[in-house]
């Protein structure tokens, strides 16, 4: 089980960051996106290589309107 943006995802332990982003409809080349796993930034260049362990908390963020 992995936490993706606060939502539980089952049966996907060990998938890569890029695969999790695909869950959210985000292409690997997408601009304006950043990812943190357990409170650490995962640089864009590592998205296809970096496997996400069971229990990890993944935050996938983008630009929203804000002052």
């Amino acid at each position, binding site marked *: 089980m992995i936490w993706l943006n606060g939502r539980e995802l089952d049966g996907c332990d060990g998938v890569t960051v890029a695969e999790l982003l695909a869950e959210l409809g985000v292409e690997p080349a997408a601009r304006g996106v950043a990812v943190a796993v357990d409170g650490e930034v995962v640089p864009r260049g590592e998205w296809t290589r970096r496997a996400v362990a069971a229990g990890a908390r993944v935050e996938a*963020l*983008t630009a929203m309107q804000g*002052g």
Partner: protein
Amino acid sequence: MSAADPLIIAGRELRSRLILGTGGFPRLETLAEAIRLSAAELVTVALRRIDPQAPHSLTEVLRERGVDVLPNTAGCFTARDAVLTAQLAREAFETDWIKLEVIGDERTLLPDATELLVAAEQLVAQGFVVLPYTTDDPVLARRLEDVGCAAVMPLGSPIGSGMGIRNPYNVQLIVERASVPVILDAGVGTASDAALAMELGCDAVLCASAISRAQDPPAMARAIRAGVEGGRLARLAGRIPRQLHAEASSPFEGLAEL
């Protein structure tokens, strides 16, 4: 503003002295039109969870308008969260610039001075160009400058309150001492507030709600731009001193005896 009087932050020249916050616009089309009429070159954005249902188009709108993104750390209550958010923003938007907000209280959204200073120091050490949203406390503004912030952004009044500049004397004191740009951030309600900020000697104004929540946001974008420009021109022109009694502008000499 004319190209002859650019705003310079961290060595970068900006022709516009109005920075636009993108928060609160009802539609992206309205935001795009407000950007055009404000003539802003720099606009703030927040970083939030990707919503697969939402059209992923804010980034597109900003790119089409040719403006640069100034990400913020809005919603952070600790230095730790603000630093991590800034790191994520750098990754997402490929910019070292960050509008640093560390909020201490949900009701007033006032900055948490101690967390702000800690976060500012860490981010400067990590190579960020830090623009901190701060209270109108001249001592805190100086401390933020001392740790290497590229500008200081005192509030006029609480975020979104539209209460204008509650303590113009403090803003003046900040301007007097600062050797980095002073950007009036938060509290602007209408064009005259923006003009006053510039007349007090601020180098720029950052404005979101006054424009985005106005009845006609694009028209207010134009008005506040004019306020910023008028206030800047007045500051450079040098206003007359205030005095209690009148001083005739028509001569008494040569007055007819009627």
